[in-house]
């Protein structure tokens, strides 16, 4: 049964012994996912070990982060993360910032992949995680869980966006299997041409755009 992370206030624990045979893998995943990347990024489907929820430069894991919709993807991307770190009345960006961001769609064939759903309480119990916060709170703890799950056969982790309520995120970890399951990315538009995103920035997030 899915859990709402905001209601699940348990203290995160570190992974102990994760028995691969006992893990409950997610069976039902949408095939289409979104990606938001800067136009100068090396490629929309690059696996990187830059500092993020499950990856960091010293980690052996390289991850590709995807979102269930274009708005979730924006908030989980560099510009969204930066805006999120600002005080509410300093959320000012330029038109160029949004023109520089590209939205992509990618189809994923999950048949051969083992994906762990960190929002599923049964799945959490199956690996000994006491709370969904193991994957959503302290990044240092989330990274330890990612390493343990990958060692136990996981190729990806599904988790709720902490920045966009109702949005889901998917971290895929680099492997031959994950690369093979990705379709060619389809460029949808630049973020400045996304009416849903602009309405969201205007009305929900009170972002201001300066014409530069």
């Amino acid at each position: 049964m899915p859990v709402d992370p905001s209601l699940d206030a348990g203290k995160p624990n570190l992974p102990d012994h994760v028995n691969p045979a006992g893990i409950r893998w997610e069976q039902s995943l949408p095939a289409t996912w979104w990606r938001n990347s800067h136009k100068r990024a090396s490629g929309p489907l690059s696996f990187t070990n830059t500092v993020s929820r499950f990856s960091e430069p010293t980690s052996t894991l390289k991850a590709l982060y995807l979102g269930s919709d274009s708005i979730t993807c924006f908030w989980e991307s560099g510009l969204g993360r930066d805006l999120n770190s600002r005080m509410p009345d300093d959320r000012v960006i330029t038109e160029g910032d949004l023109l520089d961001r590209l939205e992509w769609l990618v189809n994923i064939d999950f048949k051969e992949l083992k994906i762990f759903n960190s929002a599923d309480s049964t799945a959490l119990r199956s690996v000994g995680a006491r709370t969904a916060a193991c994957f959503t709170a302290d990044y240092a703890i989330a990274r330890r869980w990612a390493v343990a799950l990958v060692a136990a056969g996981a190729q990806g982790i599904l988790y709720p966006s902490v920045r966009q309520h109702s949005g889901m995120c998917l971290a895929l970890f680099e492997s031959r299997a994950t690369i093979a399951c990705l379709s060619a990315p389809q460029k949808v538009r630049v973020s400045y041409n996304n009416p849903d995103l602009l309405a969201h920035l205007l009305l929900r997030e009170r972002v201001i755009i300066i014409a530069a």
Partner: protein
Amino acid sequence: MAENVELDSSVPNLVADPNLDKQVVFQLLSKFNLSAGDVAQLFAAYLEIHRPKEVDLTSLRSALKRRGTEAQNRILEATGDLLTSEEIAARLGYSSRQTPHNKKVKRQLLALSLPNRKGDFFPAFQLDGCAIRDWIPELLQRIPESWGALSFLTARREQLNGESFLHVVLRDPSKVRDMIEAADDYAS
């Protein structure tokens, strides 16, 4: 019988036609300051039912930019002193104002152009004595657009206890790497 509905701009009414509904929304948005959160929340809920479309992009962009001038003034205030080309050339010991211009083009100096003002303006914080701070070209390599870079630098941030990166790195140069990493993340 089809009826022509004409919007009275002084007394907006929500009407049945969804397209006209949206026109009313944007008329109302133009009348309210969005900092009045209730209004924004009301229309956010409205637009979740009547999802915006591509034809609404111009109206949305205009509304997003409505407070842009005010925001630019806040950024300028946080930026501090601005120097003309001649002034910065003198401070850096250059013989002509062409050199700051060349450094602007090479993204080694941050320069602004302002409406109704001739020439470039250079934020003075870029200078450490008579030299350009090392991190200016590094920042501009990541965020080349001047207003984008200034907005990034001057925004007050929760994890910096309400301070901006600009304040922090000017006070404590050891924090420059943190700022540059954040700029890396910004453009990822």
